[in-house]
């Protein structure tokens, strides 16, 4: 691999991490109201939330970025490539995280709710003290593997000109005519990036598991 200047790839790596972290943060926060709406007592609210989740997940990420960057960006609401990517991927992450939260919540035995009710805990207290700590542990491994998936998804941001890893890979392969090596390297960077997340998730999971082990 001699003769290749790897600095651009490292600069791209930084943007990939920023974009992934930002979108994941937006997603995990926005997912909470979406989840609450999804479990609302009013069927109309429930239906709207479900439709939003299905529509967001039903359209490919690249098209979302195009709709935001070219569709809204040209005229209605000028937006930078990074802003468009952050908004689009954040939206997608919110829909997916809402489903992950929902899965974790439904894994909690209804006896827990009944017990909380019998102890006369309020709705908020039931959520904070009983449900959330248990659901968090269940959601963690799924959320971590989604984070890795999201990190790979950020590669589509290169198509609207965000200078992240895949973008620099493309530029470098066009400059050097060594696509095979460059893209092998870029792929390796992505894999290397996912390793610490996978490791941290496994470590956290086994630690949390040990705490509730009987």
């Amino acid at each position, binding site marked *: 691999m001699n003769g290749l200047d790897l600095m651009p790839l490292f600069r791209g790596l930084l943007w990939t991490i920023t974009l992934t972290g930002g979108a994941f943060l937006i997603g995990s926060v926005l997912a909470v109201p979406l989840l609450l709406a999804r479990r609302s007592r009013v069927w109309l609210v429930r239906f709207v939330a479900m439709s939003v989740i299905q529509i967001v997940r*039903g359209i490919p990420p690249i098209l979302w970025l195009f709709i935001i960057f070219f*569709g809204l960006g040209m005229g209605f609401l000028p937006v930078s490539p990074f802003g468009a990517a952050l908004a689009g991927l954040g939206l997608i992450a919110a829909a997916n995280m809402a489903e992950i939260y929902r899965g974790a919540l439904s894994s909690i035995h209804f006896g827990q709710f009944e017990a909380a009710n019998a102890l006369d805990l309020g709705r908020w207290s039931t959520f904070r003290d009983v449900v959330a700590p248990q659901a968090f542990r269940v959601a963690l491994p799924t959320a971590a593997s989604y984070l890795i998936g999201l990190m790979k998804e950020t590669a*589509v941001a290169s198509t609207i000109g965000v200078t992240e890893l895949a973008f620099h890979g493309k530029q470098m392969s066009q400059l050097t005519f060594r696509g095979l090596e460059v893209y092998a390297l870029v792929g390796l960077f992505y894999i290397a990036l996912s390793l610490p997340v996978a490791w941290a998730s496994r470590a956290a999971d086994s630690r949390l598991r040990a705490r509730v082990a009987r």
Partner: protein
Amino acid sequence: MLPDFTEITAWMPDLMSGFKISLQVTFFSLLIGIPFGLVLALGVMAKGRVIRAISLFAVEVGRGAPALVLLQFIYVGLPSAGLMVGSFMAAIAALAWNTGAYTSEIIRASLLSIPSGQREAAEALGMKRLDELRFILLPQGLRVALPALLGFSILIFQSTSLCFTIALPELVSRAYEIGSITFRYFPVLLLAGLLYASISIPAALLVDFIEKRAGKFASR
């Protein structure tokens, strides 16, 4: 902001022919990718160390690298090694690799979920390994794997949109082209999104339904 009727009729033929290419790429990627996944799953579980290492490498790279990078790797990378590939072939090769890597994990997990007594019984009956796989393990394993495989198929259908980056004239490319000519990006991209959603949303609901039914069978 929304497309009007004349626009829709003017754009539809172009979009539909792109849509057809998206569906073709999906079909061939799954047709090649899922059997490839089975082979990789068996390879990862094989006794031979070399076979296991090669299969594991193919799975980890196919899953670990973004589909976009796999596409570029095959489309841009292979010609620089002296092997020319068209964008359609490159798309199928990359997405089939991606499919194989993911489905191998799904299939492996479902094969491992079969109680070991089944395998022991097959051995006790003197079945050959291939017969054991064909008549005992696969019929039970694939039933478990089916919802996950279908769910993944929807993701691959959506992943065909990435072929935009290797100049395959599929749905996103067509929509983008129309947008760049007419400067009506928003309506045409919305229309393309509607076409994607018209397949992925019903398919997702169907997978949910099958998953629930499969769960009911398992809990009986």
